[in-house]
């Protein structure tokens, strides 16, 4: 719980001392508070430094140091939290990597198959050109073409699961 300060009413030196004492008291109580409360306290300290007159600059130094202390404690805490999650992230990244590798293998396989199909298509186009030049009664040539086409019907063999 942060004590509200009526900044417009803080004018005399004892009032400035009292305002800072209030904030420092709240900071002591906030050791286990969430980050939002701690940030509000840092904002209070900033307002203090911004508003206080030069004659109480000694108090400003204390306010800045209090903000620095919060910063270092919270920074250490956040970095530790990130570290604590790293083991889980590393396991997850590893599992993701396995899936990525498998997906890449699938993609590679598809690319290779596409290339083979493409070659087959080119060959058949050549056959088509050849057929166009043949007479209907050219039995030898027909046998040859049929043999070529039979060869293409084994196209499914280009896929081997262990590739």
């Amino acid at each position, binding site marked *: 719980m942060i004590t509200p300060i009526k900044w417009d009413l803080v004018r005399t030196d004892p009032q400035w001392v009292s305002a800072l004492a209030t904030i420092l008291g709240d900071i002591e109580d906030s050791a286990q508070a969430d*980050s939002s409360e701690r940030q509000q306290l840092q904002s209070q300290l900033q307002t203090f430094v911004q508003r206080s007159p030069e004659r109480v600059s000694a108090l400003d130094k204390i306010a800045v140091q209090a903000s620095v202390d919060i910063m270092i404690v919270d920074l250490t805490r*956040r970095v530790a939290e990130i570290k604590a999650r790293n083991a889980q992230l590393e396991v997850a990244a590893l599992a993701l990597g396995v899936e990525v590798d498998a997906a890449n293998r699938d993609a590679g396989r598809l*690319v290779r198959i596409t290339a083979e199909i493409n070659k087959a298509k080119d060959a058949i186009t050549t056959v088509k050109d050849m057929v166009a030049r043949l007479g209907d009664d050219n039995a030898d040539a027909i046998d040859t073409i049929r043999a070529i086409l039979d060869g293409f019907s084994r196209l499914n063999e280009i896929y081997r699961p262990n590739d």
Partner: protein
Amino acid sequence: MKTTYRTARKSLALLLVIALLFSGCGEIPDISKFAEASSGMTTAIRKGVAQTDEVLEAASTEPAFDSETQGKLKKQRADFQAALKPTLNTLDKIDGYLDALQAIAQAHKKSAEQSAALVSAVGGVVKAASGLIIPAAATNIITAITTLYRKLELEKDFKQRVNMVSEIMEGKKDATGAVIQEGVIDLLKLNVKALKDINDGVSETMITAIIDRNAVITQYHNQILGNDQRVQRVLAGILEYKKLVTEFNDFSAKAVLARDLDIARLNNKYNRKFVGISDQTERRRLEKERDEKIEDVKKQADQEINSRNAEDREIITSQLKYLLGIDAGLAGLRDSLKKFDEEDRRADANSAVHRQALVIGALEQREAALLTQTKALTADMQRINPAYTEAVAYQNKARARHNALNALLIKSDSALDAWAETHARLRMTLNTKQPLTATRLLVVAREMLDIIKPEKEK
């Protein structure tokens, strides 16, 4: 022969449809928008990590911090960099995952196109060789392609892969909904929240320290500004007072002239009437009438003048009271007026004129003094302005960096939610065969990229 050819064409058309179905054209959705948005998101989150590191770097070298604080920040920065490596690695893996899915989708589309082209080429052979016994062989080729795709089990693998990744990204929950294993999205969201907390804590403290370091220059500047504003306010008040007095005098003079003009016109009017009147009784009557009218005009005009003058005097008095209240430098005038008012009750009948002259004299003296003061203040302001501007710009830069990074990290959190939502939709898309949309993620990713865009490009 013709019948054989027609049959072959019919069966080929049917097989073409079957082949396209089996080759899975459209079964694996277009994920290019998802991949584009995801890449934008990961780029921006990486930038968020880099910018948080930059905040730590700036803080660890900030002159407003003492060397002990700088040292602690340097150590924390090193810890931070090491701690964030797995996060960056995970972001790389997310990119790799989307790239791989995208590669499959593209290769799959290309493969389907090539299969259709192959079937079409076989059709061409049949057409060219009408009368040849080739259709059976063509059928065999198409069957081979469909078998090939069946053996590949690509669609099944794709679905399985997306499901596996969903588990990794979204985590595992038991039947009661309790989390068994945290998902990557949640872990990344927590890390993004930690980055925001770091940015808030470090930036706010850095700004506080900068304000403290610049306190002398900013307070001096503000005091000069305050003094200058006070002087300007008094000068404006004096000008207003002088204007009111001038208006008062102008009105009185003009009103008296107008009144005298009306009287002169009445005199002229009656003088013209007197010409040719020999009857003394009638002339006296007219003279009496004229005198009465002149008296009326005079009385009415004087009433108006006096009423207006009374109001003006009240305003002028009020303005003087205001001036004496806001300017301690006019304390002497206050004393002089007090003394004058005491003496006036005993003696001088034209006191109003004398009193006003006394006030105007004192105000003009004060005005001259204040103008000299304002020149000195302006010179002083110009002298400290470069240092003040530099101090303010430095402080504003720290604030702007804090705000921009905060905006980016808040968007990062939304983007991670949108990523999970889009991936869940991808899973559904694979079952429903609907097109995949990634609009929300695209919008957030673009907003993030806009935040990190260099200033000159905006």
